[in-house]
């Protein structure tokens, strides 16, 4: 079973991201479960959502405390919330930022981990370009597909279409595809570096 934790702020579609991820995994033939960290949601407040993906029925209902992967939708959370808490040493990390790990001040945390499994992605910028709104959730899922190989891009696109329609859906899919390509390129560079 793979466990993914998504960190962001209220209004960034953190819960929807986990739901879309679970739909993508379902369409890919897996069992999956998505749920939010429950609370009185407020715009801007730290929000966590969770997604489990498995070949077998998922019965477990506890929050994800030892994730195989984390997606951070807002880098300002890095020094506010223990986003890396419990992350497996070989786990994947995807952060929405146009800065480098060094500039984010987390070079120490990153250095002890597998470099090809850590990536930054300017998801807000891509969302602005393709959707016209800084909504990073679907974009990050495109990047996540490239980074982890857990889900295929085509199923991310199908999941986006289940949640959104028309221009918004197509814009998000274009942005997710661009993110996919960008992350693939970044990983290639890292492997050859």
């Amino acid at each position, binding site marked *: 079973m793979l466990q993914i934790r998504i960190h962001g702020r209220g209004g960034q579609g953190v819960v929807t991201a986990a*739901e879309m991820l679970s*739909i993508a995994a*379902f369409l890919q033939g897996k069992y*999956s*479960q998505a749920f939010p960290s*429950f609370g009185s949601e407020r715009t801007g407040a730290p929000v966590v959502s969770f997604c489990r993906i498995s070949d077998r029925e998922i019965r*477990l*209902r506890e929050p994800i405390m030892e994730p195989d992967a984390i997606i951070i939708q807002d880098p300002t959370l890095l020094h*506010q*919330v223990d986003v890396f808490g419990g992350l497996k040493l070989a786990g994947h990390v995807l952060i929405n930022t146009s800065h480098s790990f060094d500039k984010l001040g987390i070079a120490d945390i990153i250095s002890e981990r597998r470099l090809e499994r850590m990536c930054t992605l300017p998801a807000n910028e891509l969302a602005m370009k393709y959707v016209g709104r800084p909504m990073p959730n679907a974009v990050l899922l495109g990047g996540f597909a490239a980074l982890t190989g857990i889900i295929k891009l085509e199923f991310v696109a199908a999941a986006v279409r289940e949640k959104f329609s028309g221009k918004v859906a197509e814009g998000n899919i274009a942005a997710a595809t661009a993110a996919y390509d960008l992350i693939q390129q970044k990983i290639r560079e890292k492997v050859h570096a």
Partner: protein
Amino acid sequence: MLKQCEGSHAVASAVAMCRPEVICAYPISPQTHIVEGLGEMVKSGKLAPCEFINVESEFAAMSVAIGASAAGARSYTATASQGLLFMVEAVYNASGLGLPIVMTVANRAIGAPINIWNDHSDSMSQRDCGWIQLFAENNQEALDLHIQAFRLGEELSLPVMVCMDGFILTHAYERVDMPTQEQVDAYLPPFVPRQILDPAEPVSIGAMVGPEAFTEVRYLAHAKQMQALELIPQHAAEFQKIFGRDSGGLVRPYRCEDAETIVVALGSVLGTLKDTIDEMRDAGHKIGVLGIVSFRPFPLQAIREVLKDAKRVVVLEKSLAVGIGGIVSTDVRMALSGLHLHGYTVIAGLGGRAITKASLHKMLQQAMRDELEHVTFLDLDHNLVKRHLEREKQKRRSGPMAENILRDVGVVAARIA
């Protein structure tokens, strides 16, 4: 058809396929996406002829459901927490009058202190109200139990509460097998009321009954629930024939054969418990879990049958009977009357506290060594409690409990679980 969707959406779809005629609900918190989804379906005409009545309170929601059901309409509503408490007087009337309303309770805690998260305090407070109470383990079962609830309730002319864990199930996306309208129609016949307010054949419903017959009318309420004990397994068997799924029934034992220790629980925590029990079985422990689906009527016989050969029983419940301990465990003990085995009550998951496998392992290991307190609060922070008690000892004007404890806990926004 397999579908990946939110629990609330799954239940709304199931209720829609049951062809309700009146849905009444108070749309403001505590409420779920269930009635929101149904409201949209009514508005789009998809549910015609069904009327959605937006009421001014939960008390009105149940009152309207009573009126609609008495007029012969298949009636549905949903609530939770404080909302359930606000409708209590009408809740008792619905069952006392024998009106087969179906209501989802998306289980949540009851204040004070104010808390919006999951536990079973709300429906447990209504355990003696005369409604049938069924508890769902996952979203598939929540969906299935609603279909069975209409059938069961209308057969007996009794209202049914389908209890599903608020947030943990209502807000969770997971796979469900969505039935077809044909399957639901084959299982659930049109509503033929046992009693109806009909101008063509005028009767009154709701007479005042004095000491000469009150006991008999109340006895009948009990007798009907005893009939439900027989009908529930039958209905589950018929459900399996049409839908191909084993869903509902009175109780659900899991790995209880030869088990020396059996955990009893209700609702979604059964999933986490099953994963824990699998790991403990792999480590060689003889342990199992018994899920109770039907809490009212309480299946004394079926429970005794599963538990009678165990050495110890741990009842894990998301509710607290202040002043004694457990609610479910008191009933389970009644099922075990005359049997000599160790009994433990574990209060867990109150107000949304996560019940983790790690905590369950630790608690069950203690239970197997018979070192568990008879009433145990899982993951209780004893220091916090001590600090407050100390404060009360030191100072007469020690201040409000909740506020004091929160100050001691500090900021929690940065926490994950």
